[in-house]
C-alpha cells in the first residue's frame, strides 16, 4: 500500500516537474534577462515619487469582488496608486464586526488616508476619525451623524456622496417609456439611504412619464416613495433572494427590473434571463461591461462613479489639499449618470431619448429638481 502511494506521489511530482519544465525557457529568458532589472528600476522609480503617502481602504462585508461599489472603490484606489506612485493597502471585511478592527489596524499602520466603503462603516470611520485627529479619513456613501442621528461634520473626514436620484430619475423615465406590460419593478439590498435614493429617483421618473403621457399608467412594484416602504432582499450577498424577488415581480407582470443590491442583482438577472422580454437596469457600474454574461438584458445602468471620486479624493489629499467638504456626485459633475444603451441603442424610440436628454439638461441647469428624503444633504 505504501509503495503504491509512493509511486503515485512520484508520478504526480513528475507531472508537475514536466509542466514547469515546458514553460521554463521563454519565461526564464524574460525574467532573467530584462524582467528583473526593469522591475527593480521601476520599483525604485516608484519609490522615489511615492514619498510616505499611504492610501488605505476597507471594504464592507460584500468584499472587493462584488462587481459593484466595493469593486468600484478598489478600482479608484488602484488607479490613483498607479498614477501617483503612492502605496496602497486594501483590506476586506468579512462581517460587520470586523470594521472597527480593520480601520484601527490601518490607522496604526500609518495610513495617510483611510477610506471606508459603504454606509455600514460609518461608525468605525467616525470613531477612528475622532480618536486620530492627525490622519485623514473618507467615507463612501454616508455622511457622519451623532448618537441621535443628527448630522455632524468632522475636520478630518470627508464624506463621498452621490445624488443618484438624478440619474435613476432618467432610468425610471426610460423604463416607463420602454415597458410593454406597463409594469416595472425595483428592489433594494438593505433599506439605507444610499439604496433608497435610487428607488426614489426611479419612482419619480415613472411618475413624470405618466404625467407627460396622459394615456400612460405605468405601475411600479417594489417601492412606495410616499411611505418609504418596499421590497428588500435583506443583504448584499444572497443572490437567490434577488432571484426569488425578481421571479415574483415577473409573475406580477413586470418586464423591467432595477435591482439596487450590488451582487444580488446577478440573481435578478438570472431570473430575467429565464423569461422572454424581461430587461434589467443595472446600478453602480455599467452592467453591460461588468456583468457581461447578462449584457443582452441590460437596458441601461444608473452609474455611480465611485472610482473617479475616490481617485479625486486621494489625488487632492496627496497634493496637500485635503478638505472635509463632502464630495457630492451629480449629473452636473458626472459623478452619477446613465450608461449608454449599448444593444438597445436602436430600440429606444427617438422621442424618448430626446426627452431624457432634455430632462438631463434641465436637472443640470437646476430647472428640474429631483427631491428625495434620501438625497445627500448639501
Amino acid at each position, binding site marked *: 500500500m505504501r509503495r503504491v502511494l509512493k509511486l503515485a506521489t512520484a508520478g504526480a511530482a513528475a507531472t508537475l516537474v514536466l509542466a514547469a519544465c515546458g514553460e521554463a525557457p521563454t519565461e*526564464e529568458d524574460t525574467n532573467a534577462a530584462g524582467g528583473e532589472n526593469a522591475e527593480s528600476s521601476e520599483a525604485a522609480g516608484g519609490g522615489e515619487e511615492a514619498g510616505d503617502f499611504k492610501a488605505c481602504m476597507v471594504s464592507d*462585508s460584500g468584499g472587493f469582488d462584488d462587481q459593484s461599489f466595493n469593486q468600484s472603490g478598489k478600482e479608484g484606489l488602484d488607479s490613483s496608486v498607479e498614477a501617483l506612485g503612492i502605496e496602497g493597502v486594501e483590506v476586506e471585511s468579512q462581517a460587520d*464586526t470586523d470594521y*472597527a478592527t480593520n480601520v484601527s489596524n490601518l490607522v496604526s499602520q500609518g495610513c495617510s488616508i483611510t477610506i471606508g466603503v459603504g454606509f455600514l462603516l460609518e461608525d468605525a470611520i467616525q470613531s477612528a476619525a475622532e480618536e486620530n485627529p492627525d490622519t485623514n479619513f473618507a467615507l463612501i456613501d454616508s455622511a457622519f451623524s451623532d448618537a441621535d442621528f443628527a448630522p455632524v461634520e468632522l475636520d478630518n473626514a470627508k464624506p463621498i456622496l452621490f445624488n443618484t436620484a438624478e440619474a435613476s430619475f432618467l432610468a425610471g423615465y426610460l423604463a416607463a417609456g420602454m415597458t410593454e406590460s406597463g409594469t416595472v419593478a425595483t428592489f433594494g439590498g438593505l433599506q439605507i439611504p444610499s439604496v433608497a435614493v435610487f428607488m426614489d429617483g426611479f419612482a419619480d421618473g415613472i411618475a413624470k412619464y405618466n404625467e407627460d403621457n396622459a394615456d400612460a399608467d405605468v405601475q411600479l412594484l417594489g417601492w412606495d416613495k410616499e411611505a418609504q416602504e418596499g421590497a428588500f432582499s*435583506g443583504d448584499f450577498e444572497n443572490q437567490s433572494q434577488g432571484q426569488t424577488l425578481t421571479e415574483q415581480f415577473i409573475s406580477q407582470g413586470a418586464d423591467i427590473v432595477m435591482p439596487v443590491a450590488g451582487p444580488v442583482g446577478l440573481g435578478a438577472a438570472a431570473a430575467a434571463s429565464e423569461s422572454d422580454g424581461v430587461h434589467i437596469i443595472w446600478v453602480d457600474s455599467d452592467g453591460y461591461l461588468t456583468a457581461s454574461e447578462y449584457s443582452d438584458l441590460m437596458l441601461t445602468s444608473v452609474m455611480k462613479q465611485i472610482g473617479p471620486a475616490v481617485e479625486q479624493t486621494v489625488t487632492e489629499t496627496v497634493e496637500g489639499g485635503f478638505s472635509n467638504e463632502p464630495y457630492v456626485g451629480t449629473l452636473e459633475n458626472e459623478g452619477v449618470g446613465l450608461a449608454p444603451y449599448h444593444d438597445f441603442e436602436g430600440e429606444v424610440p427617438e422621442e424618448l431619448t430626446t426627452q431624457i436628454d432634455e430632462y438631463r439638461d434641465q436637472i443640470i441647469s437646476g430647472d428640474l429638481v429631483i427631491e428625495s428624503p434620501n438625497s445627500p444633504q448639501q
Partner: protein
Amino acid sequence: MTEEKRPDAGEEQSVAATPPGETGEGQGPTLREQERPSVLYQIMSGSALMSVLAVVLALLIGGLLIAFANEDTREASTYFFARPLDTLAAGWTAMTDAYVAMFRGSVFDWQAGSFAGMVKPLTESMVFAVPLILAGLGIAVGFRAGLFNIGAQGQIIVGAIVAAWLGFAFDLPVVIHLLVAILGGLIGGAVWGGIPGVLKARFGANEVIVTIMLNYIAVYLISYMLKLPSFNPGRTGQRSPAVSPDATYPLLVPQWLWPDNGFRLHWGFVVAILATVFVWWLMERSTVGFQIRAVGANPAAARTAGMSVGRITVITMVVAGALAGLAATGQVLGTERSLTAGVAASFGFDAITVALLGRSRPWGTFFAGLLFGALKAGGFLMQSLTATPIDIVLVVQSLIVLFIAAPPLVRTVFRLPDPDRRRRPRRTASTTQEATA
C-alpha cells in the same frame, strides 16, 4: 470474573472517558458503543495531542496555500528549473511574513510604539475569543448530550436583540442595568435554544433541522426588528441606538489604571471564564451534568436507569441557548455596543468548530476559543500587512475541523500508533480469558 473485567473497564475509561464506563453501570451499552463509535463520539474521545497536531497540520497546509497565493512565488515558479531556490525562497518569505504578521496581530507586536501597543494584540485575541468561547461552550454541552445544536447563530441573534433592547430602551441604575441586560441576553438565547429542545423532547423533531430553521427565523427577525421605529429611530439604516454606557461591560483595564492603553478588552472575558468554570462544574460535578452525559452516551440506557431523556434534552438546549445568549452580550454590550444586522458575524458557526477542537470539554473549548480568537485578530493584520487573502484564515479553521474529524489521517501523517488497534486484541484476549474462566 468481575475482577478480570474491571481493569478492562478502567482502561476504557481512561482512553475513551465514556460516562457509563466511568461509573461502571451498563457494561452492555459501553461495549456496543465501542464496537460502532459515532463520529461525534470519536471526536470527543480524541486526545488533546490530536487537537494540537490537527492545528499544526492545518497551519502547515495553510502556509503552503499562502505561499502559492503569493504573486512573487507564482512568478518565480514559472522559471523553477532555472533557479528553483527563487521559488522556494519566495514561498518561504510569503509564508513566514504572513505568519509573523498573524503573530504580531494576535499575541505580541514588537514593532508597536508603546508597551500598551505591543500587548494590545493579545487583548484583541481575547476580545474575539469571548463570543467564541461562550457559544462554543453552549455547543459543547449539546454535544455531550448527543445533540447537534447548529442553532448557536440564531440563539446569539435573539440574545443580542433582547440584550441591546434592554440596554438602550431603559434607564436603570449603573450596575443593575448591566446585570439586567446580561440576564436578558441570557434568557433570550435560552428561549431560542429551548424551542428545539421542547420540540425534540415532546414531538421527536430532529434538533439539527429545527435549529437550522430557527437560525433563518432569527436572521429575518433581526432585520425586521431593525426596521421598527423603536429600534431605528433615525431611519438611517440597519443600526439601533447605542446601548447606554451603564449597560456596557466596563473595560477590564480601565483608563485610570493604565492611561491611553486603547484596549477593548472588557469584563465579558471574565464572564467567559466564569461560564467555563460553571460548565465544568455542571458537567463534571452536578447530577444534571451526569444525566446529560448519560443521555449522550446512550439514551436507551439512561431511560432504563430512570432518567427522563426529554427533560434532559430540554435542560441541555436551554443551557446551550443561555450560553449563546451570553456570547451575544459580549458583542452588543462589549465591543459593538449597538445592534446591527451582522452583529452575530459567523460566531455561531465558528463556535461549532471551537467545540469540536476543544473536544467538548469546558477548558478545551476555552483554549480553542482563544486560538480561534487569535486567528481572527491575527488575520486582520496579516491581510493589511502582507495582502494575504483573509479567506486563508477560514481555510485554516476548516482544515482544523477536517483533521479533527479524521484522527487516522493525523496519526498517519505523524506516524502515531492507533490506540484502538492496540487495545482491541487485548480486549479479545480478555474476553477469551473470560470465556474460559
